[in-house]
C-alpha cells in the first residue's frame, strides 16, 4: 500500500539536491536552466505537446533487505522480501517526486526504476528512480488526485502520442511479489522420472506470483482513479537469492481520458525500408 504524499516535503533529499534545484529555478539575476535525458526528438515533441522540460530529477534509496525462512516444501509468498522490494522503490519514487515539486513541475516523464545490486552487499540493493520533470505551459491541472506530480514511464514520443489519443498519464503503478517455489519431494521426483508430466506445484507457484504482482499494480491504478494501464510489463528477477526465490515485478503507466471531446486522427501507414 502506498504511503500518503505531502506536497512540498523535502524528506530524504540531501542538501546538494536542494541547492541544485534552487539554482536551476533561476532568479531575478539568473536565467532558468533545464536539464533532461531527452533526445532531440523527445525534447521537441514534449514542447509540441504544450510542456516545457524543467530538470532531471532523481531519488535513491539504499536498502537492506531482511530475511525470511521459507518452508522448504511449501509455495508461499515471502512477505518480508515483497515489502522490502516495494518499500524501497516507493522511497526512491517519493524522493524523485519531491524533487519535481521543488522545481514546480506538473509531472515526470521517462521515469526509470532501477535496482542495482553490487558485489559488496549481498542483502543490499540500490533503488534508483530517475526521470525528467516537465511543466504544462498553459497551467492545465495534470497532478494526481492526491496532489502528486504525475509520473509516467513513457518516452517523450509516447507522451505526445498519448495526449494526441486523448489520454493523459496519471501515475507509474507497480506491484511486486517475492515468492518461494516449493521444492519437490523425493517421492514426487521419483514418480515423474522419464514421463511427460506437468509440474503442478511449479506451474501454480509461478502463476500465482505473477497474478499477485499484476493484481497489486491494478489496485494502485484503481486507487489513482485511472481508466487503464498502458505499457505494462512483468519482469522476473532473482536478485541473487537462492534459486527457489524469485521476484515478479509488474510496472506500467496508469492513464485517464483528457477532459472534453476528443477526436481520433487516423494514423498514416508507413512501410519502412529497414528491419
Amino acid at each position, binding site marked *: 500500500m502506498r504511503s500518503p504524499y505531502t506536497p512540498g516535503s523535502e524528506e530524504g533529499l540531501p542538501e546538494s539536491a536542494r541547492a541544485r534545484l534552487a539554482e536551476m529555478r533561476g532568479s531575478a539575476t539568473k536565467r532558468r*536552466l533545464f536539464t533532461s*535525458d531527452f533526445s532531440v526528438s523527445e525534447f521537441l515533441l514534449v514542447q509540441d505537446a504544450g510542456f516545457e522540460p524543467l530538470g532531471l530529477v532523481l531519488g535513491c534509496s539504499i536498502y537492506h533487505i*531482511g530475511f525470511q525462512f521459507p518452508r522448504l516444501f511449501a509455495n508461499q509468498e515471502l512477505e518480508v522480501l515483497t515489502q522490502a522490494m516495494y518499500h524501497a522503490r516507493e522511497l526512491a519514487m517519493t524522493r524523485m517526486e519531491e524533487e519535481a515539486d521543488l522545481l514546480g513541475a506538473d509531472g515526470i516523464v521517462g521515469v526509470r526504476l532501477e535496482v542495482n545490486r553490487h558485489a559488496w552487499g549481498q*542483502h543490499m540493493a540500490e533503488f534508483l528512480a530517475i526521470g525528467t520533470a516537465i511543466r504544462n505551459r498553459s497551467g492545465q491541472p495534470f497532478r494526481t488526485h492526491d496532489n502528486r506530480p504525475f509520473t509516467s514511464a513513457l518516452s517523450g514520443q509516447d507522451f505526445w*502520442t498519448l495526449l494526441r489519443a486523448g489520454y493523459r498519464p496519471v501515475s507509474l503503478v507497480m506491484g511486486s511479489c517475492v515468492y518461494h517455489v516449493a521444492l519437490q519431494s523425493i517421492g514426487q521426483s521419483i514418480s515423474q522420472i522419464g514421463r511427460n508430466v506437468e509440474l503442478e506445484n511449479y506451474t501454480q507457484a509461478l502463476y500465482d506470483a505473477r497474478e499477485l504482482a499484476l493484481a497489486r499494480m491494478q489496485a494502485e491504478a484503481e486507487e489513482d482513479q485511472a481508466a487503464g494501464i498502458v505499457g505494462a510489463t512483468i519482469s522476473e528477477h532473482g536478485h541473487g537469492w537462492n534459486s527457489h526465490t524469485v521476484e515478479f515485478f509488474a510496472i506500467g503507466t496508469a492513464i485517464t481520458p483528457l477532459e472534453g471531446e476528443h477526436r481520433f486522427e487516423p494514423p498514416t*501507414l508507413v512501410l519502412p525500408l529497414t528491419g
Partner: protein
Amino acid sequence: MPVTPDPPRDPKDRPPADLPPHALERLRQITARQGSERPFFTSGLGPAATLTAGGCDWRLLGQVIGSSVYQIGGQWRTVNWRDSDRIEARGYELDIVTEGYMNGRRLALQRLQEQAALLGASTVAGVKLTSRRISEEHLVLEVVASGTALREPGVARRVPEVAGNLSVEALYALRQAGYRAVGLVSGDSVYYQPAKTATMQATYGILGGAMQNQELPEFSQAFYDTRERAIGRLNAQARALGADGVLGITPTMVSEVQSGSDGTSGLFGLYLHFTVIGTAVVRESRPAAAAPSPLETVVWLRPPAPAGPPEEP
C-alpha cells in the same frame, strides 16, 4: 570544493603543441584540398547524415580526435583519518580525484576542438567519449573524444562548438526549432562514505539485525549526494557556456566497497564515483512551433522493439 570548468581555449592564440605531428599532417592534407576541384572529407557519421548535411549545405570536413592519458592523484584521507568520521558516519567528497576525472576529459575535449579549429569547422557532431583504465597499479586513464567536424555556411567561429553526441539529423531538427547545441558538458563526483555501526551490524550476518528490512540512511544520502553534486557540476558547465538547458544526460555510476581488514566483517565503507554527460543547448529564436508542422502519427509496419524495465546487470 568547486571544480570550475575552464573556458574553452582559443587554439589560434597559441600553436596547438599538444597535438601529435601526424595529426597536424593529416589535418593539413584535408585542408589543402578544401575548395579544390576534388575536396576530400572523412566522417564517422552514416549515409543519412551525409544526405542531411548536403541538403542543408553543411560541409562535412573530417574526423577529429582528442586524447589524454591522465594519472589521477591519490587522496590519503581514508576511514581511519579521524575516528569521529566513522562514529558519525560523516561522508566526504574526494576532491582531488573528482578534479582528476574532470581534467582528463577536459583535455581530451580541448584537443578535439583544436583539431576541428584547424579544419576551419564551426561544429563537431556525433562526439563519442570513452575512458578506460590502462594501469593496474595506479589510477591512470586514457580518455578519448572523437567526432566529425563540420562547417555551417555563414558561420565563422574561432572555437568550434562541440555538439555532444548529437547526430547531424538531430542538429538540423534542433536548428529548425530555434535551438543550437553549444557544448558537451559533464560532471563528476567521487565520494567516500564510512558505514554507521548499525549498518555494519546489519550487514554482518544473522546475529546483527540482518533479519529486518531497513533503509541504510547514510548510504542512501551518500549515493544521492554523489549524483546531485555531479549533476550540479554539469549545470555549472552549462551555465558557463550560457546555455538554456541540457539534453541527453547519460549517467554512469561506479561503486567499490571497503571491507574490514580481515575480509569477513561487515560493510566498512563505500567509494562512489558518478559521472554525467550531456549536451548544452541555447535558444536562439522562438519559431512558431518547436516541432515541424504538421506532425503525423505514423504506424510502422514492423514488430516493436522489446520494451520493459532495464535488466539488472
